[in-house]
C-alpha cells in the first residue's frame, strides 16, 4: 500500500516549496513538487522604462541577487546596442564569480549540512575551545527552537567530525559577509548592486579597491580550499549511497560564461540529450502550463484545474533539462570533475545528489582560481562603463544569457518606444523544479522518485530533503 509523505514547507531553501511523495515498500514511487509563491515580475515590468529592469529584476531573488541584474543588463545592452568596455566586463565577472562562490558556501554549510550532521552533539561540548563553548551554550539556551525538530535520520554523530562541521557552519557565514564586502566595494552594496548599469559598472575603481578585493578573495579561497572542498569530500565519503540517489534524466543545459582576456570561456554552452552534446538553441525552449496556475495566455489563475504549482514547466524539444554545476561540468566534459567523481567509482559525469554537492565545492575552487587571474585583467586607467542614453526611446529586443550558482538563466526583454512591452525570464529553478507536463515528470520530481525512505515522522523524510536541497532550490526565482 502506498502512503503519502509530504514536506511542506521545505525549509533551508529560498522560498515557498512543497514536496509530496508517494511511498511504496520504502521507496518513493511518485513525487510532486510545488512552488507556492507568486509575485508577477514579468507583468509588473510592462510599461516601465527598460533600464528600470536593471533595478527591479534584480529583486526577483535576494539570494542570487547579482545574477538577475547581470542577465537583465546583458539583455538591455542588446537593445541599446552597447558593449561594455573591457574593464566593465572584468568587473562584472569579478562580481558574478565571487557571488557564486558565496552562494555555494551558503548552500553547503547553512542549507544542506543540517541534513547530514547532528548539531545537538555540540551541545554537550565540554572542552576548552571558546568558540565551541559559545556554540554549545547557544544551542542549550535557544531551547527547542532553531536547531530542534530536525527529521529523524542517519546523521553524523561522532564528536570530532560534528565539532569541525559546526565550527565551519559559522565560519562560512563570516566568510560570506566578508565576500559581500568585496562585492560591495565594486558595486556599492549587496544584495542588489546599484552600480550595475547597461554598459558596465559606474564605480571608480582604484588600486586600493583592487587590493581590498584581492584580500577578500584570498580569504574566501583559503576557506574554499581548506574547508569547503575537504568537508564536501568528507560528506561524500560518509554517504556514498547518494551517488546513486537523486538521479535525473541526465539531460543537461549550460550557458557559456566567465571568459578570460584571451577569449576562452571557463564554461562553454551546450545541451546534452540522450548522451549527445548539441549547441543550445533558444528557439527550442517552450514553457508548458498544464500543471501550473496560469491560463493558456499565461495570466495567473490560482484555480486552474489540474494545476499544482506556480512554477511553469520549461522543455527543450520536449525534454526537461537539469541545470546547475553538474550540468556545467557535464556539458564541458570537465576532466577535473571527472577525476574527482572517479575517486568514488564513477567513470562519467552523471546526475546525483552527491555529484551536485561535490560539483559546488569543486566549482568554487575553480572560480576562485579564475577570479585571481581575471582581476589581473583590470586596467586602472581605462573606462569601466559606456553609458547608454536613458532618454532615447528605444525599440528592440535583447536576450541576456547568464549563469547563477544553480544554473543557466535567460532574461528576454522587448521594448517599444522606450517602454517594456514584454519580459520573459527562464531561470535555473524553473528548469529544475518545474512540474510535470506532457506526461514527463519535472527534473526534481524525477530525482526524488526512487529515493529509499527509511525515516519518517513529523519532519517528513530526511532522505527526500537531501535530494531536494542538493539542487539548491530558489523558489522565488523559479516562479518570479
Amino acid at each position, binding site marked *: 500500500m502506498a502512503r503519502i509523505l509530504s*514536506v*511542506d*514547507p521545505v*525549509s*533551508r*531553501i*529560498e522560498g*515557498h516549496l512543497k514536496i509530496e511523495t508517494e511511498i511504496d515498500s520504502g521507496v518513493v514511487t511518485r513525487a510532486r513538487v510545488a512552488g507556492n*509563491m*507568486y*509575485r*508577477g515580475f514579468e*507583468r*509588473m515590468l510592462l510599461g516601465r522604462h527598460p*533600464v*528600470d529592469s536593471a*533595478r527591479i529584476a534584480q*529583486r526577483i531573488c*535576494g*539570494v542570487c*541577487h547579482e545574477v538577475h541584474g547581470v542577465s537583465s543588463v546583458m539583455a538591455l545592452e542588446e537593445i541599446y546596442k552597447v558593449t561594455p568596455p573591457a574593464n566593465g566586463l572584468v568587473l562584472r565577472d569579478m562580481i558574478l564569480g565571487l557571488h557564486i562562490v558565496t552562494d555555494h558556501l551558503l548552500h553547503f554549510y*547553512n542549507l544542506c549540512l*543540517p541534513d547530514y550532521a547532528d548539531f545537538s552533539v555540540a551541545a554537550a561540548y565540554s572542552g576548552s575551545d571558546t568558540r565551541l563553548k559559545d*556554540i554549545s551554550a*547557544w544551542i542549550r539556551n535557544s531551547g*527547542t*527552537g*532553531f536547531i*530542534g*525538530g530536525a527529521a529523524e535520520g542517519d546523521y553524523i554523530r561522532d564528536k570530532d567530525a560534528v565539532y569541525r562541521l559546526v565550527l565551519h557552519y*559559522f565560519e562560512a557565514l563570516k566568510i560570506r*559577509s566578508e565576500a*559581500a*564586502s568585496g562585492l*560591495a566595494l565594486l*558595486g*556599492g*552594496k*549587496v*544584495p*542588489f548592486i*546599484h*552600480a550595475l*548599469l547597461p554598459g*558596465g559598472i*559606474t*564605480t*571608480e575603481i582604484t588600486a586600493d579597491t583592487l587590493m*581590498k578585493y584581492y584580500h577578500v578573495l584570498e580569504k574566501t579561497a583559503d576557506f574554499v580550499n581548506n574547508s569547503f572542498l575537504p568537508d564536501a569530500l568528507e560528506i561524500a565519503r560518509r554517504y556514498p549511497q547518494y551517488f546513486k540517489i537523486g538521479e535525473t534524466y541526465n539531460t543537461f543545459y549550460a550557458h557559456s560564461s566567465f571568459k578570460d582576456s584571451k577569449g576562452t570561456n571557463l564554461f562553454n554552452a551546450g545541451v546534452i540529450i540522450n548522451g549527445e552534446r548539441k549547441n543550445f538553441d533558444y528557439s527550442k525552449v517552450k514553457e508548458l502550463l498544464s500543471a501550473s496556475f496560469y491560463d493558456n495566455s499565461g495570466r*495567473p489563475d*490560482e484555480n486552474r484545474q489540474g494545476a499544482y504549482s506556480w512554477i511553469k514547466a520549461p522543455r527543450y524539444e520536449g525534454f526537461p533539462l537539469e541545470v546547475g554545476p553538474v550540468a556545467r561540468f557535464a556539458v564541458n566534459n570537465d576532466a577535473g570533475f571527472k577525476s574527482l567523481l572517479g575517486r568514488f567509482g564513477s567513470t562519467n559525469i552523471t546526475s546525483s545528489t552527491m555529484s551536485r554537492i561535490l560539483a559546488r565545492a569543486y566549482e568554487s575552487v575553480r572560480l576562485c582560481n579564475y577570479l585571481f587571474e581575471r582581476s589581473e585583467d583590470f586596467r586602472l586607467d581605462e*573606462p569601466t*562603463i559606456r*553609458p547608454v542614453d536613458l*532618454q532615447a526611446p528605444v525599440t528592440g529586443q535583447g536576450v541576456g544569457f547568464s549563469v547563477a550558482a544553480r544554473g543557466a538563466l535567460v532574461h528576454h526583454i522587448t521594448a517599444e518606444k522606450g517602454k517594456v512591452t514584454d519580459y520573459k525570464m527562464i531561470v535555473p529553478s524553473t528548469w529544475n523544479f518545474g512540474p510535470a507536463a506532457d506526461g514527463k515528470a519535472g527534473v526534481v520530481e524525477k530525482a526524488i522518485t526512487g529515493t529509499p525512505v527509511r525515516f519518517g*515522522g*513529523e*519532519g*517528513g523524510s530526511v532522505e527526500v530533503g537531501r535530494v531536494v536541497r542538493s539542487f539548491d532550490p530558489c523558489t*522565488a526565482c523559479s516562479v518570479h
Partner: protein
Amino acid sequence: MLSRRDFLKKCRDISVAAFGADIFGAEIAEGFMKIAASDRPLVSFIQGQSCTGCSISLTYGNETNFIDFIMKLIRLQVHPNLSFSQGESYLKMLDSVSAKGGHVLVVEGSIPVKMKKACMLGEHTLYDELKKHMEKASAIIACGSCSCFGGIPASGMNETGAVSVEKYMSMTGIKKPVIKIPGCPIQPDRFMGTVAYLIATGKLPAMKDGIPTLYFGELIHNNCTRFQYFSQDIYLDDYNKDKHSCLLKKGCRGTVTKADCPTRRWNGSVNVCVESNAPCIGCVNEKWPFTSDIYIEAKNVEDVPWSDFKKYSEKRGRK
C-alpha cells in the same frame, strides 16, 4: 563595583558588537546587563511574498554581526531559511512559539489579499495563517520595504493584491504597534539595532509613522559626501568620465529619501550606492519601486521633478 567605564566596556564586549550601535549605546548596554540568556525573547521569522533578500542582508551584517545577534541577543526559534526542522515539525515549532506569545514576530515580504494562494504557509494561505502568529506577539517588525509598504510585489498592476503588514492587520482586526524598517533590502544595523533596543529597554524606539527616526530621520542628501558638489552646482554628466560629482541630474533620489545610508554605509561599511557613483534609487521610500521611471535624467536641475529641494534649501538655509 565596576566603574561606569568598565561597565560600558564589558557591555560592549557582550553586546555592543552585536548591534553595531554607538547609536543606542548606553541604554541598550544597561538593559542587557539585566537580562539572563534564558529570558531573551523568542524570535520567529515569517516570509510572505519576499525574495529572501532581507534575511540574506541580515546574515551578511554590517557593523552588526548576525552571528553575535542570534547567539547573544535573541533566541531565534523559527527561520524559513535557517531552521533545521522542515514540514510539519517546522510548522509546529512556529505554532508553539506563537501560542505561548510574548515573541518578536518578524515579517519579511508582503501578503496577497486578492489572490490568496499566491503565498502559502504549509497547506494554508499565508492570509489565513498569519493572524494567529501576530495575536500574542510582543512586537511585530515589518522587515524591508515589501512588508512595510507592499514594495515590489504590490507594484505594477499588483495582480495578487499584495499589501503591507499594517494593512493586513487593519483588514484582519489586529491592533498592535508595528515597527517598520524599510529598505530593499533591509540594512542589517537598522534591524538588529532596533531589536536590541526593544529587548534591552522593553520600549519602542522613537518613531515617526512607525519608522525609527534614528535611522530614517534625515535626508540622505544632507550627509552625502557629494553635497559639496551639489552646493557648487557641479553635476555629473558622464559616468565614464566623472566619478565624483553630484548625481542629481542622473535622477538621484537622495534629496527626497530619508535614511542614514551615507553615514551608516553597507557591508562592513565599505561602500554605499551613491559612493559607487550610482544614484540613490530611494529604496526605503513608501512608493518604491515607484510608478515613474527610476532614473529621471535632466539637462537642467530644475527639470528633475524632485529638484524643488534645491530652491527650498536655498530659501530656508541648508539643514
